[in-house]
C-alpha cells in the first residue's frame, strides 16, 4: 500500500471559502426565518441527514481507492471541508420543508426529486467553478446526478417514515 498524492489547488482564503461561507449563512438565515413546521428534534434530524449523507459520499468516493475528486484547497481534510458539509444541511431541510408545506402528493414525488436533483447538479457545477470541487481520475459532473437522485429519494423516505411514526404515536396516545 502507498499513500495518495496530496494535491494543492490554492493556499489562500478566497472564492471557494467565501462561496461556502455565504451559502452556509444564507442557509442558516433561511432555516431561522422559515415558519416552524416541525419539532426541534425533527428539524435537527432533517438538517443532520443531509450533512451525514454528503459526508458519507464525499468520504467514500473522494478518498482512495476511488479518489474521484478533492474538496476545497487540498487533497487533505481541512476545517473548511467540514464547513462545506454543514452547508448541505439547510438545503436538505429546505427540500423537506417545501415538500411538507405544499403537501406535495406522493405520485408527484419523482418529479419533485428530479427537479431537486437538477438543481443540485447545477449548484455543484457553480461550486466547482468557484473552486469548491476538483474532479480527478475521469470523474464527470453527470456521475453526481444518480447520487443526488439516491440522496434526495432516501431523504424523502426518511421524512415519510418519520411522519408515519408521528401519526401512529398520536393514534396510540388517543
Amino acid at each position: 500500500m502507498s499513500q495518495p498524492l496530496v494535491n494543492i489547488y490554492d493556499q489562500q482564503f478566497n472564492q471557494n471559502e467565501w462561496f461556502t461561507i455565504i451559502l452556509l449563512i444564507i442557509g442558516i438565515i433561511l432555516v431561522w426565518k422559515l415558519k416552524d413546521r416541525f419539532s426541534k428534534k425533527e428539524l435537527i434530524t432533517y438538517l443532520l441527514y443531509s450533512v451525514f449523507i454528503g459526508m458519507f459520499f464525499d468520504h467514500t468516493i473522494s478518498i482512495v481507492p476511488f479518489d474521484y475528486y478533492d474538496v476545497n484547497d487540498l487533497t487533505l481534510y481541512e476545517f473548511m471541508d467540514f464547513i462545506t458539509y454543514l452547508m448541505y444541511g439547510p438545503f436538505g431541510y429546505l427540500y423537506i420543508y417545501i415538500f411538507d408545506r405544499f403537501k406535495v402528493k406522493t405520485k408527484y414525488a419523482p418529479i419533485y426529486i428530479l427537479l431537486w436533483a437538477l438543481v443540485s447538479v447545477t449548484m455543484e457545477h457553480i461550486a466547482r467553478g468557484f473552486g469548491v470541487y476538483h474532479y480527478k481520475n475521469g470523474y464527470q459532473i453527470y456521475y453526481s446526478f444518480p447520487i443526488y437522485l439516491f440522496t434526495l429519494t432516501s431523504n424523502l423516505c426518511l421524512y415519510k417514515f418519520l411522519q408515519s411514526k408521528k401519526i401512529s404515536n398520536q393514534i396510540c396516545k388517543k
Partner: protein
Amino acid sequence: MTVSLFAFIAWMTIIIFSVIRKGLNIFENFILFFLITIVVINNFTIISLNLKLIENTFRPDMFISLVINRNIIIPLCILTFLNLLSLFKEKLKKILVVIITLLILVLDELLVIWTGLIVYRGWNIYLSIINLLVILTISTLLVKELKKLS
C-alpha cells in the same frame, strides 16, 4: 469473502439493534446515528488521510467492507450502547454495558486489521481504545444534551 463477512456482521448489528428495548425515541436514535457516523467518519479520515497513522486498503472490494464497518457496524454498536445505557438505572449494569461495548468495538478493530483492511503506521490498539473511549464519552454527552430538548 471479506465483504460477505462484514455484511453479515452489519446484518447482525442491525438485527440486534432492532430487537433490543430502546431507551431513546426514534428522533433521538436518528439524530445520534447521524452524529455518531459524522464523528466516526471525521475521526477515520483525519487519522488515515491527514495524519497518515493508519493506511487503508487500496482494493475497492475491500474498501466496501471498511465503509460497511465505518458507517453501519461502529455507529450501530454505539447507538445500541447508548440505548441500553439510557434504559438501565443500576450502576453495575451501566458499567457492564460500557465494558461489553468497548470489547466488541476493539474486537471489530482487530478483525479489520486481521482481514487487511487497514495497516497501522505509527498507530496502535491502545490508541484505538482511547479513541473509542473518547467517542463513547462524546456520544453519552450528546444524549444528555438531546434529552434537554424534550
